[in-house]
């Protein structure tokens, strides 16, 4: 079929008509939608609003719950912090106590007391009277403990609160470890105090001297003690 001029014009006119019709149709639809609110729409809106209110109240409840939980967490955290502080203190105490009981090595200023057997034993005398006995050592140790020595060792063997000193002939046994003269008793504490307490007139030093024991006392800037190990050696 041949395309005639009037057909082109007609189709052009129809394009414009269709365009206008479609446009106005759309327009009418939109106007209807925006202006007329039907019962159903009201109902829907009502429903949605109720839903929103419901959700809001739900949210409120949840946020209250959250607040409560947060408060709980706070208290728990405080408790934990307190406990941690307590633990810290306990650990510190433990450290100190370990130092006292001798299960860890300690170092510090202190005093060194050396007890040696008498060099000279007159003829006919009992040599037993001229050697160092465990009693002498115990005296020194007691004196040192009384003067607040913090740690004591004999010939490097740490003394704990349950140590024992035993006299076995010319040697002594400390917690089962044998020691020979001369006995070096090291004590950590205030050196001046320890020194003075040993030098009291009629005190430990004088008593030891009168028992024919050679006593040498010197202050030390730094004494390092190994931990107490009963199974040592």
């Amino acid at each position, binding site marked *: 079929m041949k395309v005639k001029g009037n057909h082109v014009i007609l189709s052009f*006119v129809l394009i414009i008509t269709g365009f*206008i*019709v479609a446009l106005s*149709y759309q327009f009418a639809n939109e106007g209807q939608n925006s202006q007329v609110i039907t019962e159903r729409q009201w109902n829907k809106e009502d429903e949605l609003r109720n839903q929103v209110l419901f959700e809001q109240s739900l949210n409120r409840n949840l946020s209250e719950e959250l607040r409560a939980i947060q408060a709980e967490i706070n208290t728990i955290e405080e408790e934990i912090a307190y406990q941690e502080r307590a633990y810290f203190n306990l650990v510190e105490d433990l450290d100190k106590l370990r130092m006292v009981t001798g299960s860890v090595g300690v170092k510090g200023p202190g005093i060194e007391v050396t007890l040696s057997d008498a060099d000279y034993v007159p003829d006919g005398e009992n040599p037993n009277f001229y050697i160092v006995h465990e009693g002498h050592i115990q005296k020194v140790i007691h004196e040192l403990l009384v003067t607040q020595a913090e740690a004591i060792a004999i010939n490097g063997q740490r003394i704990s609160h349950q140590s024992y000193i035993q006299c076995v002939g010319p040697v002594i046994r400390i917690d089962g470890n044998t020691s020979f003269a001369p006995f070096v008793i090291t004590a950590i504490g205030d050196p001046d105090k320890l020194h003075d307490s040993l030098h009291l007139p009629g005190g430990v030093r004088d008593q030891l001297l009168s028992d024919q024991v050679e006593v040498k006392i010197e202050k030390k800037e730094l004494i390092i003690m190994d931990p107490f190990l009963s199974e040592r050696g």
Partner: protein
Amino acid sequence: MWLPFVGLVIGLLLGFWTEFRIPEIYSNYLSIAVLAALDTLFGGIRAHLQNTFEEKVFVTGFFSNILLAAGLAFLGVHLGVDLYLAAIFAFGVRLFNNIAVIRRILLSKWTAKQDRQTEN
């Protein structure tokens, strides 16, 4: 005969798919323009059926009717008189007239055709 209908479909699709917007206050003009366009179209169909169709008259009538209707509505809005009612009235009456004439012509053609068939 198919080209005008293709044009109509294209126009409808364009109207639906393009995001072309006119302000809401001009929607009255648009409806009157629609009425004018339909009136002219049916007038053209009638003229075609009566064999008095003239392209120039049809095309100029189409555009001038649309513009006149829109202009009348515009004037009416600004004068405070509902002049677009006049346009709607006039176009509506002519639309019905045209449709009635088309119907009658088609009917008479149909009956004539049937008569011829029965004669044969």
